[in-house]
């Protein structure tokens, strides 16, 4: 089964991050590096990316065949997607174990979603 682990940021988490010392940030980066290594080693990693700042995001709207963009969402929005992992593992429980290692999970900002697949049981 594939699972998407979504990592959000909110004003509180951004404030905490900005208040961290270099050493404290290094601890955060190391947790990510260890998680990435473990997921690659176990063969469960499919892809992981961190997203650029939300101020660089564009919202796309198509009207009469023409694509128009607006800036945003803005940083004051309450929760913004900051990064994700797409993993493949045996169960939701296992996916949750991995998600719990994401530092943002300590702030309640990590979500696990099962991915729909093309399989179908005999009916």
């Amino acid at each position, binding site marked *: *089964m594939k699972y998407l682990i979504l990592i959000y940021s909110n004003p509180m988490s951004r404030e905490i991050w900005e208040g961290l010392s270099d050493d404290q940030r290094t601890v955060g980066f190391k947790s990510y590096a260890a998680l990435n290594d473990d997921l*690659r*080693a*176990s*063969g*469960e*990693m*499919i*892809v992981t990316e961190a997203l650029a700042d939300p101020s660089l995001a564009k919202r796309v709207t198509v009207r009469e065949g023409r694509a128009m963009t607006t800036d945003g969402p803005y940083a004051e929005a309450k929760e913004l997607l900051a990064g994700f992992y797409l993993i*493949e*593992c*045996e169960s939701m429980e296992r996916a949750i174990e991995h998600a719990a290692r994401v530092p943002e999970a300590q702030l309640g900002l990590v979500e696990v979603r*099962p*991915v*729909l*697949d*093309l*399989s*179908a*049981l*005999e*009916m």
Partner: protein
Amino acid sequence: MTATRQVEVLLRDLAPQVLGAVVRRYGGFDTCEDAVQEALVAAAVQWPTEGVPDNPKGWLITVASRRRIELWRRDAARQRREETVAALAQPAPVPPPGVDDTLTLLMLCCHPSLTQASQVALTLRAVGGLSTAEIARAYLVPEATVAQRISRAKQRIKTSGAEFTMPPEADRSDRMAAVLRVLYLIFNEGYTASSGEALHRVELTSEAIRLTRQLLARLPEDGEVAGLLALMLLTDARRPARTRPDGGLVPLAEQDREQWDAGAIAEGIALITRALASAPIGPYQLQAAIAAVHAEAAHAEDTDWWQILGLYELLHNIAPGPMVALNRIIAIAMVHGPREGLDRLAAAETDPALAGHHRVHAVRAHLLDMAGDREAARATYRLAARRTLSVPEQRYLESRAAQLPPPDRPRPGTDPDAGG
């Protein structure tokens, strides 16, 4: 058959034999497996244009051996470590006569230190002769993911100290169960994919059938191996009838049975009949027997549900699980009526193994539909569609809901949520 396809079939048959020979000569399962894989790739490129050599197995062993030595030199030069030399100095023991490498390989690939996904990937590559890219395509994951899975699996086997020999007698039945489970998973992955990238995945069902046939040829008296092969053949026989041209699913009861593969059904029924008469009963044999009862009914309404219910009772006793529990309830409903099925479902739902299982909603919707409770069936099909993890199943459940008329609009002044 094209030249490329012919070569592919030949290479997949030879893969485990070549790997066995190279491991016995040089030792070191992990490096040998890489070397054999490279020899297979070289052959897949050269043979279709240059022709198949007179002794294809010998050619592969020679090329893989050369590669094995190169890989060892490279590692040795990089590491200069004593243990590498020591490892090379200990080739796998010479096989006692009559022992077959394919069986040894299957058991090694299904080593208990590996996750199921790794057992599957390693089995497909080392025993099935599939490339990492082919496995990745079949499982819709990136090649790097499969490559990691395989190399990590080989490392784990190495550190666990497992050798290229048959596991000790005491471990054999557990290991055999793991092998059958892996073959079953490979089959299921290919079979349950009903649309989209399905083309690549059909190959997984034929690969699983091929490997199970090889296993049965080595263990002809094993009832569970025969049962698994029968189950695969009887299930795969329905493939032509189970999808619509648009990729939508056709449930068993609505399939055009004329389209079923009569040859596969005859072979499956012969296998399971013989196994049931001669071997101790097991879960694969029971599932095959159930599939055989369905196969024997010319029309859905001719199905012998009493017999199916009896078989599910047995299966429920020896190998309980959520799917068996749900299928048993469907059989109860077919024999004793949908209301009885709904009562059993309500009772079974308190079992933690079943509570919250998404298939519970699909089964309830089906039973409500059978009972003629259209409104409740419609709502429950919708709920089941929201809770499933499968796209084709979602489409199927949505279409069932759409076939039932919507409930009457509430009269003005009544609150549909009030009461009840």
